[in-house]
């Protein structure tokens, strides 16, 4: 019951965000209709005719009041239709998104997992050696890595690994010469292309985990049950298990939340590496005022975050017996 409520709430939130962005993107200066309309007029087509043509080409009714457009859009979205791209006439937004999403999702997920893993390791390490210089070194590295903007790291990595030494490719998600699908060459090519984006996610991501894990571990280490476990003569493995499970648990919610942040960061990272994911799609859409695509990216990202949160909460109740719901 509670979960059904939450799911309904989540869907509602996505809807509200979608509606808000509907109006927001249309407030941007330079509407695509205007651009095309003026282009046509300059070609010598009379005003009303030009409007007509824009109407046909762009799949929008020009001069339609915003609210009417919204009602229109509502009708579409209820049928699960996100509309068609304005700039790439005739291409459904869904298709653009599904072309871009896998790349982002996979790189973000791998980046997240690796950074989480490294962060947790370093955090535990730092907690164990606390009050010593290694610990403060780890902490400082963690917080600095966390504070350096993603695009700075991305540019630096690009410079080093793609420009100075040509270890990694300069753009794209895979080489066109391999056949996309579940085959060795394709996977290798993909891994090769995603190395730098993933590396960037890891470098900018692990710091936060290190700090959180350290804080969490330090507080668990202070807990009486850790001392108790030691005095009970439990094996070192068991004790580390106690420590690990108790200190990682609070990080789970953050794990899912950071998925959203990383989706946001993809705008910078994918831009820098010319990696054809959601971030790139969004940046292009913003540049060309491709409203439906912008909205599509927005809705998708928001939905991903919201549902990731939902899953995190759900998993949390399963993992932590203290939360009974």
């Amino acid at each position, binding site marked *: 019951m509670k979960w059904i409520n939450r799911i309904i709430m989540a869907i509602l939130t996505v809807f509200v965000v979608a509606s808000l962005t509907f109006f927001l993107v249309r407030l941007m200066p330079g509407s695509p209709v*205007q651009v095309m309309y003026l282009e046509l007029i*300059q070609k010598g087509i009379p*005003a009303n*005719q030009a409007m*007509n043509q824009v109407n*046909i080409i762009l799949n929008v009714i020009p001069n339609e009041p915003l609210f009417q457009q919204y009602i229109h859009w509502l009708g579409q979205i209820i049928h699960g239709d996100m509309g068609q791209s304005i700039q*790439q006439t005739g291409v459904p937004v869904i298709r653009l998104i599904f072309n871009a999403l896998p790349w982002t999702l996979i790189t973000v997920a791998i980046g997240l997992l690796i950074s989480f893993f490294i962060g947790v390791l370093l955090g535990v390490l730092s907690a164990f050696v606390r009050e010593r210089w290694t610990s403060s070194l780890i902490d400082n590295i963690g917080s600095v890595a966390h504070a350096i903007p993603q695009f700075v790291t991305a540019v630096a990595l690009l410079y080093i690994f793609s420009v100075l030494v040509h270890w990694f490719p300069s753009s794209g998600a895979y080489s*066109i010469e391999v*056949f996309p699908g579940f085959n060795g060459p394709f996977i290798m090519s993909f891994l090769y292309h995603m190395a730098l984006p993933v590396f960037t996610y890891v470098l900018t991501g692990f710091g936060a985990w290190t700090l959180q894990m350290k804080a969490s571990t330090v507080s668990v280490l202070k807990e009486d049950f850790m001392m108790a476990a030691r005095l009970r003569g439990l094996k070192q493995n068991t004790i580390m298990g106690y420590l690990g499970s108790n200190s990682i648990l609070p990080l789970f919610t953050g794990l899912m939340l950071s998925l959203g942040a990383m989706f946001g960061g993809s705008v910078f990272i994918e831009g820098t590496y010319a990696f054809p994911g959601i971030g790139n799609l969004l940046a292009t859409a913003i540049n*060309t005022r491709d409203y439906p695509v912008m909205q599509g990216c927005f809705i998708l990202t928001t939905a991903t975050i919201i549902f990731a949160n939902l899953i995190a909460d759900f998993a949390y109740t399963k993992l932590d017996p203290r939360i009974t719901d």
Partner: protein
Amino acid sequence: STNGKASGDKKASGTITYAGGWATNGVTNPFGSNNIIQNDLSYVPLAWYKYTEDFDYWKVLADSWEMSDDGKTFTVKINPKAKWSDGSALTANDVYVTFELQCLTGAAEGWGLSKINVVDDHTVQFQRDPKTLYSKVMFERQILNNVAILPGKIYEKYIPDNLWTLVKDWGGDKESQATKDATAKLTEYAKKAQSVNLNPKDLIFDGPWELVRTSSSQQLYQKNPNYLYADNVNAGKVVAINQTTNDVTWRALKNGELDYAGVGYSKVVYDQVMKVHKNSYIAAPMSQGMALYFNENISPFDNVKVRQALAYAIDRTAAQKIGEPIGALESGKINGLYKTVAEQWLSKDQLDSLEAYDPNPDKVTELLKSAGFNKTDKGWMVPNGKPFKFNVTVPNLSDWVAGIDAITNQLRKQGIQAQTSVVDTTTWTQEVPLGKYSIYANWDGGSDINPSQAFNQLYITDNNYSVTPSGKLKNTATSPDQRQEAIPETINVPSLGKVKPMELTLQLLGDLSQEEKKGLVYKLAKTTNYYMPFIPIWWQAAGRTISTQRWEWPDITNKPELENQYTYHTPFVVFQTLGLMKQK
């Protein structure tokens, strides 16, 4: 099905990788508005224009062609050996449908195409509307060179039965209901034909390579064994990389990934790229540049003297060094024409009679003073005592920004409160015609090396007028502010007297003798040189980079027809067809 067809072909084992793609996630539809197929590679036109002298072509799909003396019919014979990639013959119907498609978008009507007749399987007759302002030469070039032949089978179904009636209506009175309806109908059909998404496997090709696969950043092509000149083609594969931003292409070039790229450079990158992988640079001419435009509705830029003073104040060469250091041509004498075109159309004396506007501080002072300006210790003041403000709006194309920045810096040093404002390109596109900016950077020149097009752009289109197919001028401005150039109908040019630039341009567009045209061009050039509706800063570099690491490219010294291919076509398509490229 298309996979591996050429795999046995020993000769065609090489791969050409080039940066040329622009589309991102578009449709595979060679007629589509976001087509991802590099049409040059997969679809060829009837003939390739050499861009040297009128009437000089390489035959591609066409065997022969002829323009009737009265200029009303143009007959083309198709090479009977021409085939589609699936082995079927390429016939007159394919050509017919291809040009019908052109009518849907209103393009063909613009050139004066009024009807097409299929004479036999390999002969097509094009009818030209004699009233049109489009010259015979241009008409011929459109038919032969500018349109790639698409498969008729695929597009037939998008052509309305009453196409030619609609085309006729389209050319009628602009205000009539029939014209409006026809336009609407045509656009609707065009849209259908353009937005359909075709699977590469269902497509057939008549060019040297067929599309195999696309990703969001690359396309893969494979040799078409049924291409008319397949024997000459020795590149088994072509990989096209999307040219989203220059730096992606630079990196690829620096990494030795590319055989060919058309990309601009900054000096440092140029030096680096040319050092490696046997890259070399071919400075292809291009008739586009960057210029400063004035909104002559806004004081003090309505004053010719102020504009001239600014021309004297700006060191264009210095700006170009910063904004477009590699491959760019100097703007030369300010006359509205591309430098080489001007040299071709104007005599040396005529050229010399034009003012050069080399940087000259004395002239600046003189002109501004005579315009009522005052120089104080705070810089120049306009006649009403306020500071002279020079605020240029630039779209965020970074080379432009850098160049304009250099100019504002120059002006500031001369006591003018100059400033650069950068807006994003979309906003800029929208706001320029609305007359929002007093000074702005914009593209310079028509899209053709034909002077008529250049002046058409400058004096008619940019002035918010348009030429109707029947040769009349029509004001398209929707508000007074929109007439941003606001060039008066009559300009009093010293040594020429009263000149009506718009009328002259209109005449230039028609069928005239070369001599008559040259006379008009001189008048217009002189007018431009005096009236200064814009200040050209540089001509854009259209340089191409080739790598001779894997391929040997043809020698272009003293072969302007080959050199021109770097500007107007994807050069290796032509070179491969002509059998001029060798693999290393």
